[in-house]
């Protein structure tokens, strides 16, 4: 078949050789505009980078395990924490959550595909090439220490460190360009999700009958529109400074480094909510199904999500208390930050009330979601502590802050991502993930997580600053750092079990059937995996739990919902 690169579909010739079949398979994934395939591509891409950024985290932890360590050089260490942060936020968090949105939103709202399938493919490939561009810097980047330099300015890339004088070469440009490119991909996906949800719902699927997952994805996408774009704008300014000799962040010409901080955190703080709202979205689907109850307080959940989106736009400068603001500024940002606690508190009570009195099944997805509720509460409480400006002056840029935001990013978001994968893997592949390996994965990860990040609060309070290469032996941080690093290794082992589970269950897992969890949203009415056309006939919906109505014709939900 050497003369035939791409076999003609539907050809009646003899069965294609292995090589040709492989090429056809590859071709079908590269040119696909199907929302399900693109969703899988997003998720696989993000899981790959999850492993990469996890390895980077472990390098950081090995370096910090003992004092005066020289496991890696200071230059490599700077690259590691920069790339760990950048990768986890831009190449893991957003792609995986948009991957779930891509896969699930059309299925949940009874649509054939996304509103703009080709824009969808374009967005994915922009995101993918953004990631490749960023990682190519390890080979092609030229920085302060010569060739092969990845970005090393921290994921926040504060001015004036990013100025040409302090970051010569172009590794910082790799950082900015890669994020501009993937940022356009993200913008495209956000537009697509909004248009899908507002314009493609099946008959009867009013906004207030949508699954909460879709509602939260709508809110997230709206927030993304006004969150990612300021970063793109700031990075364009950075590129103007670095390449065209501009003076935006050049203090000698009257520019201001603090303006970069403002612009970065105008993006950076809502970004946290862009990442965590999809985690809420996942919990909103998993917790009711495994508690065997409808979600408690659906309208409150929706309004709390919209509230979080709005309040999150007004809190960015709580990252900058130590920069020095007026007392009015400090008070404003402290109070607005505390206000985020109100809608998030509503959500936590709603999840608890959903579980309360329910017939809880502790399958792996539910285990992850239960841990999520507790951990997210604790993350929120340390967040309230840090929003108090004087407390923040004491602990800013310490490991306490690192512990706080990893409690959100890992304890809430990664836990929910794992829950989502255990929950929807049967739908996507047609096979169940192993519950036994799943329980091992959960407990190891849970224990490792708490060993690492609980202890991190303590070293933070003991004064250990973030982003340091190493430390002296007499600071009293030695044992704690060793324990933190061991916890990191346990999490690494848990993730390996998870990866093995993904692969092994794909080949040998139990058949899932259409609806293994006895769930209520539309995606479970399709075969697993769903056909390319999703629904043989357009579904018609009369309540928030269409499958409940089908399964219980004597007691349908629409009798009780208005």
């Amino acid at each position: 078949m050497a003369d035939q690169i791409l076999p003609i579909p539907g050809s009646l010739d003899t069965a294609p050789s292995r090589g040709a079949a492989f090429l056809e398979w590859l071709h079908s994934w590269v040119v696909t505009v199907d929302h399900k395939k693109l969703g899988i591509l997003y998720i696989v891409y993000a899981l790959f980078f999850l492993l990469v950024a996890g390895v980077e985290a472990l390098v950081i932890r090995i370096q910090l395990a003992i004092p005066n360590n020289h496991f890696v050089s200071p230059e490599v260490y700077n690259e590691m924490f920069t790339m760990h942060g950048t990768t986890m936020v831009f190449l893991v968090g957003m792609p995986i959550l948009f991957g779930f949105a891509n896969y699930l939103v059309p299925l949940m709202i009874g649509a054939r595909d996304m509103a703009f399938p080709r824009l969808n493919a374009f967005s994915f490939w922009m995101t993918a090439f953004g990631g490749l561009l960023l990682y190519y810097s390890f080979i092609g980047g030229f920085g302060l220490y010569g060739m092969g330099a990845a970005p090393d300015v921290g994921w926040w890339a504060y001015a004036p460190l990013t100025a040409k004088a302090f970051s010569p070469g172009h590794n910082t440009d790799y950082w900015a360009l890669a994020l501009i490119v993937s940022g356009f991909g993200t913008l495209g996906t956000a537009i697509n999700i909004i248009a899908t949800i507002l314009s493609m719902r099946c008959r009867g699927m009013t906004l207030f009958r949508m699954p909460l997952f879709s509602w939260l994805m709508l809110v997230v996408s709206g927030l993304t529109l006004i969150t990612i774009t300021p970063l793109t704008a700031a990075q364009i300014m950075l590129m103007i400074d670095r390449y065209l000799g501009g003076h935006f962040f050049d203090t000698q010409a009257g520019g201001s480094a603090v303006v970069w901080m403002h612009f970065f955190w105008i993006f950076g703080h809502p970004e946290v909510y862009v990442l965590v709202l999809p985690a809420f979205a996942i919990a909103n689907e998993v917790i009711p199904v495994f508690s065997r109850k409808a979600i408690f307080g659906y309208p409150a959940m929706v309004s709390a999500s919209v509230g979080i989106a709005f309040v999150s736009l007004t809190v960015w400068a709580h990252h900058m208390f130590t920069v020095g603001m007026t007392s009015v500024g400090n008070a404003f940002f402290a109070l607005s930050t505390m206000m985020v606690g109100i809608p998030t508190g509503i959500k936590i009570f709603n999840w608890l009330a959903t579980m309360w009195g329910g017939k809880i099944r502790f399958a792996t997805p539910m285990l992850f979601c239960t841990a999520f509720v507790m951990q997210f509460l604790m993350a929120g409480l340390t967040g309230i502590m840090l929003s108090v400006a004087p407390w923040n002056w004491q602990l800013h840029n310490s490991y306490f802050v690192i512990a706080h935001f990893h409690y959100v990013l890992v304890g809430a978001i990664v836990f929910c991502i794992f829950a989502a994968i255990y929950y929807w893997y049967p739908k996507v592949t047609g096979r169940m993930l192993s519950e036994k390996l799943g329980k091992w994965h959960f407990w190891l990860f849970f224990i490792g997580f708490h060993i690492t990040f609980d202890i991190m609060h303590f070293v933070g309070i003991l004064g250990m600053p973030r982003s340091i290469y190493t430390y002296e032996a007499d600071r009293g941080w030695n044992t704690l750092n060793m324990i933190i690093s061991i916890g990191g290794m346990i999490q690494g082992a848990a993730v390996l079990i998870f990866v093995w589970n993904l692969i092994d269950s794909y080949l040998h897992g139990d058949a899932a059937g259409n609806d293994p969890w006895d769930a209520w949203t539309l995606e479970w009415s399709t075969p697993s995996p769903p056909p390319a056309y999703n629904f043989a006939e357009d579904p018609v919906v009369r309540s928030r739990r269409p499958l409940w109505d089908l399964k219980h014709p004597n007691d349908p939900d629409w009798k009780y919902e208005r």
Partner: protein
Amino acid sequence: MSSVPIFVDENWRLPSRGRVGMFSLIIGESAIFTIFVVAYVYYIGRSTYGPTPQILDVPVFNTVCLLSSSITILLAEHAIKHGRMRTFGWWWAATMLLGLEFIAGTAIEWHKLIFEDGLSLRTNLFGTTFYSLVGLHATHVIVGLIGLSLIMAFTLAGRVEQRHAERIQVFSLYWHFVDAVWVVVFTVVYLVGR
């Protein structure tokens, strides 16, 4: 509860995806412009050396041209909606010409600034913020012009028909946005900041 209809509403209508998508894009773009406008406003008068905004001339003719292009494109939308394709073509061409005039006017303005007043992007902070904000807007005008000329080419080839009216309207939203942003940029750069 008894009021729940047995059959789902037959008038199930949702907003057009093109419009929703374009409005979303406009919201995102507005955030980009907001950041550049904020940077411009914050940096007014902070240049430590070099030319100041006093060297700017108010581009009245340019502004009139760009803003009238919003009216001509509106007339074009109206024409295609009612199937008057020739009228549509003429108004569309007029829109393009007005857009081209705006870009030409900007080019002349920048030529004067660079070669007579010695203001380039790297001269000082004012130059950086001025060229990036006005340039960002000009970039959007150019993108809009590319779209306008593509549709013009299809129109001349006879491929644009009445049934495309909605797509034309969706595209026009972008052009209206570009014009509306100019009102902000014009106010900030030439009225407030000068």
